[in-house]
């Protein structure tokens, strides 16, 4: 009996059958839907911890109203994994991505245009036009901007009041203040970029916006203004000098992380920080009051400007089999509960809303008021990571340390950025900010 079973042909067939049994189930689709239930793959609501908790609120509200749809939360590790998932046709139905990434992917037919849904649901009724335009490509709206964010000066309010220091409004004020701070054996600025050199871009963004103003920054990012123009060269050179004078983390910002630098500030070892509005909802409890102000203008006697941008956006996968259902889910992003949850975490949706009735943390309320006032006065600008051409952003986010560590000259560095900008514009990889 065994002999017959172990006959070569029989053996082969047995192995083949076993392999088939093992392989076939793996080849079958893992996301079979039951006859009466639709399954949508959506971003993991815990992707940024509490900051992204609004997604969970949106999912819960939607699922309550739509028992026929099941939401499966999936975690995509990074942009590379997302690219692979898109190419393999396995990406989620709903995705979160930056405007520049969304535009590249739209050109590759991975992102669904949302114009019919904008029309159907009236999503742009209260939406800031500049935020919506971040997700416009070739006349098509391709995403729903998730939040808006800005860069602000965070300072030790208690210390400033105690010493009678004035919050600096421009470069002259700042240069008058920093020696006084140093005399107290305190660092003027806490800053850390070792874990994420991309944050150095915040300084460049703040500098060029305050030197060139809103219109000049538009031109710098997508128009005729050149990165090699003397005022830009001068501004970046002054930052390099400022850093090398030891005013930024004692010339060691490249050796510590953002979190380390935050701790230096919270422990009173530094007087100020450059920070984003998204971090204002953090439950830090230092033994001093924290103050917020627009970041000082880098012009000698200029007026501060708050650079604003879109932090990300929700887009629909063009390969999704259930686009209408995803759009219906997206419409829940505009429900009051979700809007409030976003604002509470310092990442407000880019909508004209009255936040005064919402129960916001004091820091968040202060920051939102600050932005609102600056916007009314026309003193807001554009963050580079949202609006500069992608190759320019890549240099700003990876190579600014070469300037202040004197591995390259300011002129050469800016000439390289200008060359990259021109190449991106020739390749039509840029935001048409003149339409904003």
């Amino acid at each position, binding site marked *: 009996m065994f002999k017959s079973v172990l006959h070569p042909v029989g*053996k082969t067939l047995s192995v083949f059958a076993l392999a088939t049994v093992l392989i076939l189930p793996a080849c079958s689709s893992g996301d079979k839907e039951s006859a009466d239930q639709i399954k949508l793959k959506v971003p993991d609501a815990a992707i940024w911890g509490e900051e992204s908790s609004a997604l969970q609120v949106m999912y819960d509200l939607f699922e309550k109203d739509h028992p026929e749809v099941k939401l499966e939360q999936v975690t995509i590790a990074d942009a590379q994994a997302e690219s692979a998932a898109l190419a393999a046709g396995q990406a989620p139905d709903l995705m979160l991505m930056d405007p520049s990434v969304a535009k590249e992917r739209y050109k590759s037919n991975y992102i669904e245009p949302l114009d019919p849904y904008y029309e159907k649901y009236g999503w742009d009724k209260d939406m800031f036009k500049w935020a919506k335009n971040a997700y416009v490509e070739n006349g098509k709206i391709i995403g729903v901007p998730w939040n808006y964010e800005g860069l602000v000066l965070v300072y030790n309010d208690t210390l400033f009041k105690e010493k009678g220091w004035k919050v600096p409004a421009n470069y002259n004020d700042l240069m008058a203040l920093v020696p006084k701070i140093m005399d107290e054996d305190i660092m003027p600025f806490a800053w850390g970029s070792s874990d994420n050199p991309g944050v150095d871009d915040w300084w460049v963004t703040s500098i060029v916006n305050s030197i060139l103003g809103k219109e000049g920054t538009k031109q710098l990012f997508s128009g005729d203004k050149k990165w090699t123009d003397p005022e830009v060269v001068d501004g970046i050179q002054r930052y390099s000098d400022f850093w090398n004078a030891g005013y930024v983390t004692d010339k060691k910002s490249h050796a510590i992380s953002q979190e380390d630098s935050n701790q230096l500030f919270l422990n009173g070892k530094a007087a100020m920080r450059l920070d984003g509005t998204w971090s204002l909802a953090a439950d830090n409890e230092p033994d001093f009051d924290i103050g917020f102000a627009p970041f000082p203008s880098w012009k000698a006697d200029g007026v501060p400007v708050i650079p604003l941008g879109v932090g990300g956006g929700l887009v629909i996968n063009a390969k999704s089999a259930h686009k209408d259902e995803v759009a219906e889910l997206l419409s829940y992003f505009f429900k009051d509960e979700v809007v409030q949850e976003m604002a509470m975490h310092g990442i407000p949706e880019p909508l004209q809303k009255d936040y005064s009735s919402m129960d916001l943390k004091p820091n968040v309320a202060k920051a939102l008021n600050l932005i609102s006032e600056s916007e009314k006065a026309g003193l807001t600008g554009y963050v580079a990571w949202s609006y500069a051409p992608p190759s320019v952003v890549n240099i700003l986010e990876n190579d600014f340390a070469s300037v202040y560590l004197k591995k390259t000259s300011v002129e050469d560095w800016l000439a390289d950025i200008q060359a990259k900008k021109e190449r991106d514009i020739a390749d039509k990889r840029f935001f048409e900010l003149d339409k904003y």
Partner: protein
Amino acid sequence: MTKKRFQLKNWAGWLLIVPGLAFHLYAVTVPAALGLYLPFTEWNGLDVPKFIGFDNFIEAFQDKIVGMALLNNVKWMLFWITVPIILAFFLAYLLTKVKKGQTAYQSIFFSTSIITVTVAGQIWFWLYNPFSGVNFYMDKVGLGFIEWPGLTIPSFSLVSVLIADMWRGFGGNVIWLLAAMSQNDKSLEEAARIDGAGRFRIIWNVILPQIRPTLVVVTMLTALGSFGAFEMVYVMTGGGPAHATETLSTYYYSLSTEGRRAGYGSAIALFQIFAALILIVFYGYLRKKKGWDV
């Protein structure tokens, strides 16, 4: 044995390798073939790659960062095939002399190798922190004059990352070399000693020649691994500050992901393959011409 039976037997063999072969084609052969084509394209990782001839290679030869990264890879290799291997050799030698608790010592030396790179990198990052790490406390006790700059001075950053990487990885080399030494013919050492040879003469003329095959393999694997240096750099510095710790791997990774220039990144990755090929040819030369067989 009929012809038919013979054919069936052949079929059986092919059927048995089909799953493995299919997986290899899908996961290795096709990506490898694409890897040879992509360097000649402009590709953002999503679109259909656009053929651009040798443009990426021309750009790579003009790209200062590629030169820095390649040089860092060479420095990485030179460090790894000298300091950790010499240290591992002497530790392994000392361990052969330990009569009691050898396993405990081996475990201690090997223990750092089982720590993940992420954790090891973070530990060293904390140690190097100028405001709360070792230097901070050395300053406090008046020993600031011997402090190691860690990541604060770019020209020291690469060595600082290498020290962290060595701390994590050199235990493996100790175990390899110890295993080789334990196979040595002890009577040769004894004979040399009777003939009046000193300790270093015995190491040089008796021990080293016997473990040479293992040493060659360990050195070769270490050198090859050096050209793929990525994890510790990525965890500790991401290639910074100002590309001071950039390696070819970290550079083409950032180009392919954040920079969305996977075609150009692939061209740079080819440099690694060339470096590996040169090392393999050199190894082949040692085996054939010098008789350094394993």
